[in-house]
């Protein structure tokens, strides 16, 4: 009822505004007439009665205004007027509006985009029930995480009391044959408890049963939703049906939910039980079951803390039991590394992400400072306007309201544009994101971050915009009205100078970060990988099929088939026109081959049997070193003479040779690589060191063997092809050459060595790109800031400058005067920023390579850049000041 009246009455007075106003005017007038009449009735004269009524009831106009201002419609009316006025104000000052809106949009957009990317990775809980209970458990190798063996898992799963489930898993890449070309599918080979650890069950069908994860158990597979839809058209009848993988038939028992996100292996699309042979696990250690090549995850029991689990596992690691014998390499003597799943998947990227988050916070801060600066500059001009309005009867509240409307409008414009920048930024981030960044699919625009950024800039804008409005009441209207007054400079100029200095300092900190990262990148790309990268095509061939099986009836027969296939394939590749040289290797430098698959224990003849060195084992074709361009330092390379019947030959890497045979000739020395019950390998040559994992990592100990002299034949080899021209152009003819030998063998990771190199450094590149972008934004904002303050100051000092000119100052003198004012601010900003950068750059230390966080060249060049940009920004106002005509300014007074 009353709400209805509120609405209808309000709308009526809003629509028929003049009538409503007239109504109020009539009523008030009638009131005063009655009052006058009443006084007259008491015997006063008409004149006296009027005075008495006014004395008693106040000013008629004031009463009218008071009554008129009642009701929500009135607020609407005033707001509409305020908005109209604000739009006119912003349009009349387009330069200010554009710079302000762009500053806001950049600050809000950039910080929203970065936070949107960082939040799901570092802060949001993972998409599993009680995700905090999921732990990753690692072996310790030289203090760092390292893979674990099946045998270790068996013992830990049996002995621990703090976990609900403990799972192991490793990559499994079966070939799906039958289509035109064999397709390699990313999958995982897991223990039956895998999905229980994650707390996610198949949406269709069922989870693995413990009885399926046994040696020679049934071949079963669970599909991802994506694979199911893509390859099986989302057919529910697939359950119970066989799928051919690697020449075997697997029964589909389940399909995972569409929303299932597997942070442990984001591209995995199918899962199968591991089915290890446990019959000789306690007696025989030279089996796959004791190879440290598995990852392990567990789920805490409710009510058990991570610390309790860490304690229990440390206890288990320290106290071996007789029923669980451990080999030397799985002795757990260095304990286990246990981390929550979230910390574990992010520990590699955390420093980079935090650095980027810090950088974008600086950008937001600079944007805020710039907005304050711009508004202060404008406020100085507006004091006159406010004084006029106050003199005309506007209350302080009314003026404050106007200022708020204007600021909110500005914030709204900035917010809308910022939303666009953020959306584009999120896309750009996903596009730029380095491989290995977890949870990229979960990145989407974060509304909380957007609201925060918009809120903080708006709030700051409001507070700043209010300053001149607050001055209106406090000071006498008089000085404000005297627009000629030159006193305005004082206090505000000081604040604004401080702000510009702050901006310069913050920009310098960001630029130093960008400079350091850029220098690191230069250093890194200057690192010699140990081989020649141009014109090199690489591709990985993974053998698949039962023809390669080593059956008990014919041991080694499968290996021979495999070796023959690879040799024929290599021969076919060499025949491709445009191919200069070709070779293959079990381990490709700078690829994503996990280091662990290439690391083996080596023991020299003069060492006791308990000693072991971890070395990379490269099983290669004879021409490998020549094709890669790895330098031969002494002796000879492997060649055709090193056949399966010849004495076993090996090449050592330079650093391995130097560390074990200092001052001696290593040629002719003997060593074991891998199993020690086989003939010795004899060193026939020494070759240069090669970067295996990354340009930044030195792991130079390596041994090269011929594939035909290795104790097992690798099922996956990388081909390296040196082209005469563009290596990428050879890709399809090389693939076809290999398929001409056997069309059922999948070929993956076809790429040039130069793009592999780019991928290895992708994370650094990602951080560097962001720092560069933010650095440029900061530089621009700082330039706008110093330009704004100087041009404001020149306007305010026109009279003084005119006077100086009149008194004989040359244009040059005035130019120097203004420039030096700007450069003083810059110098102060640089000084403060320098100290800030010294501290802040320590946070970047882990991301740097080959330079110190105090690298003088980076600091010097960045300071030069900032000073140059500041000087350019100062030049325009200085030039304008120098053009001031003394006659005109003095006459204008």
């Amino acid at each position, binding site marked *: 009822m*009353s709400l209805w009246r509120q609405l209808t009455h309000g709308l009526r007075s809003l629509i028929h505004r003049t009538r409503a106003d007239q109504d109020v005017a009539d009523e008030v007038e009638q009131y005063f007439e009655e009052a006058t009449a009443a006084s007259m009735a008491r015997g006063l004269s008409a004149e006296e009665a009027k005075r008495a009524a006014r004395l008693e009831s106040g000013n008629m106009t004031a009463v009218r205004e008071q009554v008129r201002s009642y009701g929500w419609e009135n607020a609407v009316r005033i707001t509409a007027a305020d908005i109209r006025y604000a739009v006119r104000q912003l349009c009349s000052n387009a330069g200010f509006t554009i710079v302000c809106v762009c500053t806001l949009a950049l600050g809000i957009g950039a910080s929203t985009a970065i936070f949107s990317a960082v939040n799901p990775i570092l802060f949001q809980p993972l998409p599993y029930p009680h995700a905090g209970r999921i732990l990753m458990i690692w072996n310790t190798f030289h203090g760092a995480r390292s893979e674990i063996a099946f045998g270790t898992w068996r013992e830990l799963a049996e002995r621990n009391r703090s976990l609900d489930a403990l799972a192991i898993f490793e990559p499994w890449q079966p070939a799906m044959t039958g289509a035109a070309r064999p397709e390699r599918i990313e999958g995982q080979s897991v223990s039956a408890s895998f999905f229980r650890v994650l707390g996610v069950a198949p949406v269709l069908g069922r989870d693995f049963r413990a009885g399926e994860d046994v040696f020679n158990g049934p071949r079963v597979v669970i599909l991802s939703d994506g694979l199911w839809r893509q390859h099986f058209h989302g057919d529910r009848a697939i359950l119970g049906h066989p799928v051919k993988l690697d020449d075997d038939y697997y029964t589909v028992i389940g399909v995972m939910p569409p929303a299932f996100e597997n942070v442990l292996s984001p591209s995995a699309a199918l899962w199968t039980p591991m089915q290890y042979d446990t019959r000789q696990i306690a007696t025989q250690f030279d089996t796959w079951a004791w190879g440290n090549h598995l990852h392990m995850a567990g789920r805490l029991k409710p009510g058990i803390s991570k610390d309790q689990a860490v304690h229990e596992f440390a206890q288990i690691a320290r106290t071996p039991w007789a029923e669980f014998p451990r080999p030397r390499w799985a002795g757990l003597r260095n304990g286990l590394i246990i981390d929550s799943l979230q910390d574990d998947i992010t520990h590699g990227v955390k420093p980079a992400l935090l650095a980027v988050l810090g950088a974008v916070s600086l950008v937001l801060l600079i944007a805020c400072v710039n907005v304050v600066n711009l508004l202060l500059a404008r406020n100085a001009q507006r004091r006159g306007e406010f004084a006029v309005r106050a003199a005309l009867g506007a209350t302080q509240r009314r003026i404050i309201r106007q200022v708020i409307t204007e600021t909110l409008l500005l914030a709204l414009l900035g917010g809308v544009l910022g939303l666009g920048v953020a959306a584009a930024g999120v896309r750009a981030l996903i596009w730029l994101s380095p491989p290995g960044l977890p949870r990229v699919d979960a990145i989407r625009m974060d509304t909380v971050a957007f609201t925060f950024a918009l809120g903080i800039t708006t709030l700051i804008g409001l507070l700043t915009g209010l300053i001149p409005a607050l001055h209106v009441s406090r000071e006498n209207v008089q000085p404000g009205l005297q627009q000629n007054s030159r006193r305005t400079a004082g206090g505000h100029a000081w604040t604004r100078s401080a702000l510009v200095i702050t901006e310069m300092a913050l920009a310098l900190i960001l630029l130093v970060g960008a400079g350091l990262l850029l220098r690191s990148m230069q250093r890194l790309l200057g690192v010699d990988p140990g081989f020649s990268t141009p014109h090199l095509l690489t591709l990985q061939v993974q053998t698949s099929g039962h023809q390669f099986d080593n059956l008990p009836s014919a041991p080694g027969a499968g290996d021979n088939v495999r070796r023959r296939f690879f040799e024929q394939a290599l021969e076919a590749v060499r025949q491709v026109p445009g191919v200069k040289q070709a070779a293959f290797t079990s381990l490709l430098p700078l690829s994503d081959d996990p280091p662990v698959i290439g690391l083996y224990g080596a023991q020299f003849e003069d060492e006791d049997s308990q000693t072991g060195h971890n070395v990379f084992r490269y099983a290669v074709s004879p021409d490998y070193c020549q094709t890669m361009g790895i330098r031969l330092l002494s002796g000879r390379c492997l060649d055709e003479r090193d056949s399966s019947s010849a004495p076993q030959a090996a090449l050592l890497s330079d650093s391995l040779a130097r560390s074990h045979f200092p001052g001696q000739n290593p040629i002719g020395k003997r060593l074991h690589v891998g199993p020690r019950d086989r003939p010795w390998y004899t060193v026939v040559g020494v070759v240069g060191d090669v970067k295996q994992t990354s340009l930044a990592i030195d792991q130079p100990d390596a041994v090269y063997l011929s594939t035909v002299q290795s104790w097992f034949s690798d099922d996956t080899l990388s081909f390296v092809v040196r082209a005469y021209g563009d290596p990428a152009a050879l890709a399809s003819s090389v693939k076809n050459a290999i398929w001409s030998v056997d069309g059922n063998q999948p070929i993956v990771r076809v790429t040039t060595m130069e793009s592999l190199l780019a991928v290895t450094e992708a994370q650094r590149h990602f951080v560097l790109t962001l720092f560069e972008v933010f650095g440029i934004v900061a530089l621009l904002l700082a330039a706008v800031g110093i330009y704004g303050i100087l041009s404001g100051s020149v306007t305010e000092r026109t009279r003084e400058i005119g006077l100086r000119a009149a008194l004989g100052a040359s244009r040059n003198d005035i130019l120097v005067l203004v420039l030096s004012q700007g450069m003083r601010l810059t110098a102060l900003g640089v000084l403060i920023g320098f100290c800030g950068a010294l501290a802040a750059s320590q946070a970047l230390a882990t991301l740097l390579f080959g330079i110190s966080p105090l690298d003088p060249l980076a600091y010097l060049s960045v300071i030069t850049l900032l000073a140059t940009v500041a000087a350019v920004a100062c030049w325009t106002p200085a030039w304008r000041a120098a053009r001031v005509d003394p006659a005109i300014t003095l006459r204008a007074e």
Partner: protein
Amino acid sequence: MNDQNTDVIQGTLDMLILKTLSLEPMHGFGIARRVEQISRGVFKVNPGSLLTALQRLERAGWLDAEWRQTENSRRAKFYELTRAGEKQLEHETADWTRRASAIARLLKAEG
């Protein structure tokens, strides 16, 4: 300020208006004069506050308003209590009595 002549106690203006209008429909000045007369000049009503309060009470649905001729044949806006207004008056009166007697008891207890 004159001790004999105080502004209407904060929050009681609505009740006084409703009470005054419960006798007969009246225009703004009539209400002001009636409040002053009945309170024997203790309460003085400010026209700005009064006319705004009348608008508010009308919007709340407690009063109806209509332009009519006064006895001295001027056009004036007359206000009349609605059913809802009567109820509101009862409610406010009861509430006021309760408070006033409580305060009176407290003051007595002091002595």
